[in-house]
């Protein structure tokens, strides 16, 4: 195999800005989790607290998918190919939570 010469590949220099940005996003994820944790013991349980939890979870999901999974930087058609099917999940949530309420009314 004469064509597989062992050439030492010189790694490109580190882009400090990029690394800093990644750690900043990690810090955001950590802080949001800490806020959720804090609210769980300071706010009364109820629909308001649950809405805040769902909101903060979506914030975390946005950062993970857009930055860590790099989806924000893909072409538009790829972003939509992934995001549009997710709408089906919203329908399933609405349908099954309503169904759960009906089952409760029948049983109790």
């Amino acid at each position, binding site marked *: 195999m004469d064509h597989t010469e062992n050439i030492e590949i010189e790694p490109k220099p580190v882009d400090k800005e990029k690394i800093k940005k990644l750690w900043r996003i*990690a810090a955001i994820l950590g802080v949001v989790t800490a806020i959720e944790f804090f609210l769980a013991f300071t706010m009364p349980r109820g629909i308001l607290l649950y809405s805040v939890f769902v909101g903060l979870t979506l914030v975390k999901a946005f950062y993970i998918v857009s930055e860590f999974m790099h989806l924000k930087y893909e072409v538009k058609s790829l972003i939509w190919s992934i995001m549009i099917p997710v709408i089906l999940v919203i329908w399933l949530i609405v349908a099954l939570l309503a169904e759960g309420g009906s089952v409760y009314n029948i049983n109790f």
Partner: protein
Amino acid sequence: MAVSTTLSEQTKKNIWDGGVSPLKASYGKLMMWFFLLSDAFTFSGLLITYGFLRYSFPAYEGSLSAFKPSQEYWPIPEKIFDAVPFLHGVHLPLLFVGIMTFILILSSVTMVLAVEAGHRMDKKDVTKWMLWTIIGGLTFLGCQAWEWNHFIHGTEQGLTLTNGIIFHGANLQMNEYGPSLFASLFFFITGFHGTHVFSGVLLNSVIFYNTVVGTYEKRGHYEMVEKVGLYWHFVDLVWVFVFTFFYLI
């Protein structure tokens, strides 16, 4: 003018005719994205089932401090998951799952740093960050093993049944925390996620090995690191949702 119009029309017609990548992503990455989409549906199904069953059981009414587990109503998770290893008998609600969440977020960061090092063709850095990611994954799995062990064996006080027998822990038929389905959902949801973490660790180990022996350096790119990276971040993403819907709410 005329020339440029024909050109743009031609590109428009040809973009899905082959020879170009309309989504500007390789086949492997694209398929990983669509696999993850289908996996997202599976996890949505499991978590929404949790919501459905929780809605079909009575909620606990009364003050939080007076909460006692019973099979009559759905438990409040922060009252159930309050144990931390080596701190036996101390009431530390949700602290351990909080730590597990941080571990998984950190391993997601080390993964993204491995991907970044791959773009720079820096074999040493890819090796280092892949190793940290594997360690993070194994730590998470260890934590989950402890969590399962504690959940299955239960607390000292257990649950006193109507016939006077005290039941400890949980199995698929009954548990001391609440309705039977509560434990089943715990096993299904965290178990299915744990299986994903486990296969993620296996995949990461294969990629780590290939990096060390120089497969990707010879290939000229580290795209495989990106592909397992997508999978690994997805596992983290799912945990974010499990943390909220199973433990917080």
